[in-house]
């Protein structure tokens, strides 16, 4: 069966050209970049070239890019590294409620370690209002971390405005751009951020390579201590092939970005138009300020994982923020924080598009998906509505 992959926010296939670029470093160029002989110095050179390419993707200086093993590591590094480095100035940090788990749980870890954390609410589109941030700032605040684009609802935050508020107050600003870098223009100076996380596997690069941008001159406490790799800021023998792959991926993403955005946006618009024709299906996230390849919905009266299984049986791969589809068995906190009732949030379904998706893929999806919705609604006890006790208005998450 032909597979239609609509889950680019989960991960991306590794592009052939990128694997080609990596292969020498998986074969004869196996040297440790710290070794002084040529086998080592070639590996070091390869890393530094990759650093330049990654830096160029985000408009940064190469020396400001620190390679990590994952977006999650970059986020942990940013939050804890800055909170610790600045703890003498204050012990309050601010994050939004729509952050990735790696930011949220780093923040909670800091909370346990004696920091105070404000979790900023968002509007119904998952957007942080600049005013909300302004009000949350105290004299103790040292760090604000707001996600650039949401992997769950596609909403793009007004980072420029938010970072300006932080700057006015002499507060360090981090943005998690894992879901956006390589998918929309991301420029650290445009955005006005001090730190920014990105991950290669979100733009056709390899798993195992990600990076944290740290504004030159900003002190950060390492997350992984040891040798002098990454200028003493991140120890461990470098994953040379993956880093080289990330460089190549960044280079290609930069070159192809306008075309890719145009391509996926066209498909996405068609997808959204087609799917929202079905009754009781709602677009989640911002209608316009969203990732160009991101289409996310709540389908009423049925559950996300069941949709995913039926879609998968048709060769369609997508994602869901429902409780049952998450291994943690909790409905997406992002959806709930946007005010979506917990019962409706169970019907979450997310399609994220990539360069290799075609119009025919969308046609196929649109021909199959409405039937799947109907079939599951036939099985659902709520096909006629949530009923008295389960009215939408009442399904606000208890807790």
């Amino acid at each position, binding site marked *: 069966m032909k597979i239609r992959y609509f889950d680019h926010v989960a991960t991306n296939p590794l592009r052939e050209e990128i694997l080609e670029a990596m292969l020498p470093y998986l074969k004869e160029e196996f040297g440790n970049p710290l070794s002084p002989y040529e086998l080592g110095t070639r590996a070091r050179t390869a890393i530094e070239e990759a650093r330049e390419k990654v830096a160029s993707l985000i408009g940064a200086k190469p020396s400001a890019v620190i390679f990590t093993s994952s977006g999650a590591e970059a986020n942990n590094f940013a939050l804890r590294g800055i909170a610790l480095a600045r703890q003498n100035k204050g012990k309050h940090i601010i994050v939004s409620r729509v952050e990735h788990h790696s930011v949220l749980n780093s923040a909670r870890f800091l909370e346990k370690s004696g920091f105070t954390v404000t979790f900023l609410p968002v509007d119904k589109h998952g957007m942080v209002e600049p005013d909300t941030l302004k009000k949350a700032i105290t004299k103790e605040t040292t760090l604000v971390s707001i996600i650039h684009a949401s992997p769950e609802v596609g909403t793009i935050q007004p980072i420029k405005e938010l970072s300006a508020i932080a700057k006015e107050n002499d507060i360090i600003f981090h943005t998690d751009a894992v879901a956006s870098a390589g998918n929309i223009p991301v420029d650290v100076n445009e955005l006005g951020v001090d730190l920014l996380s990105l991950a290669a596997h979100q733009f056709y690069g390899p798993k195992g390579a990600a990076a944290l941008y740290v504004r030159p001159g900003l002190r950060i406490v390492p997350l992984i201590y040891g040798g002098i790799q990454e200028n003493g800021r991140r120890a461990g023998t470098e994953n040379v092939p993956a880093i080289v792959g990330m460089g190549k991926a960044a280079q290609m993403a930069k070159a192809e970005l306008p075309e890719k955005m145009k391509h996926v946006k066209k498909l996405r618009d068609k997808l959204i138009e087609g799917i929202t024709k079905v009754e009781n299906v709602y677009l989640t996230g911002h209608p316009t300020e969203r990732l160009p390849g991101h289409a996310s919905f709540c389908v009423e009266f049925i*559950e996300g994982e069941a949709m995913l*299984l039926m879609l998968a049986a048709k060769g369609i791969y997508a994602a869901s923020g429902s409780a049952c589809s998450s291994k943690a*068995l909790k409905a997406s906190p992002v959806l709930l924080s946007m005010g979506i009732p917990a019962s409706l949030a169970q019907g979450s379904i997310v399609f994220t598009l990539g360069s290799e998706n075609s119009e025919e893929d969308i046609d196929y999806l649109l021909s199959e998906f409405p039937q799947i919705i109907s079939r599951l609604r036939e*099985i659902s006890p709520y096909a006629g509505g949530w009923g008295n006790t389960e009215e939408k208005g009442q399904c606000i998450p208890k807790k």
Partner: protein
Amino acid sequence: MYSKEVMDHFMNPRNVGEIPDADGVGEEGNPTCGDVMKISIKVKDGKIIDAKFKTFGCGAAIAVSSMVTEMVKGKTIEEALSISKETVAEALGGLPAQKMHCSNLGADALRRAIEDYKSKQGIQTPKAAKTKKKKAKTVKKTRKGT
């Protein structure tokens, strides 16, 4: 992730629907948590001669509902009450550990349907009024390494 039997019962669920003149109806779960099962039964001469279900929930929940309605048909009320989470999971070739408790509500919904039937019949079942909540002892097929 799911066994063949689960996928079969999910993709081709048996006994979907509601029995219009049901003798007992039971519901278990809450849509805010993810899974709700509604089972209706038809009883004749102390035997369950028909069972239907409606389920809001994941693949496991739908497969469990389908399997429970299949298992229960032809059974006496007493026999039906012996159906447990574990026997349902076993009949389905196992369930992932994480789905064992949250999506495996079929036996509970069935029990509620039987209670409903009994109360309509005026049968006294002081104990059964409270759904037994036994901890599962065996989960046959769990995901490795978690």
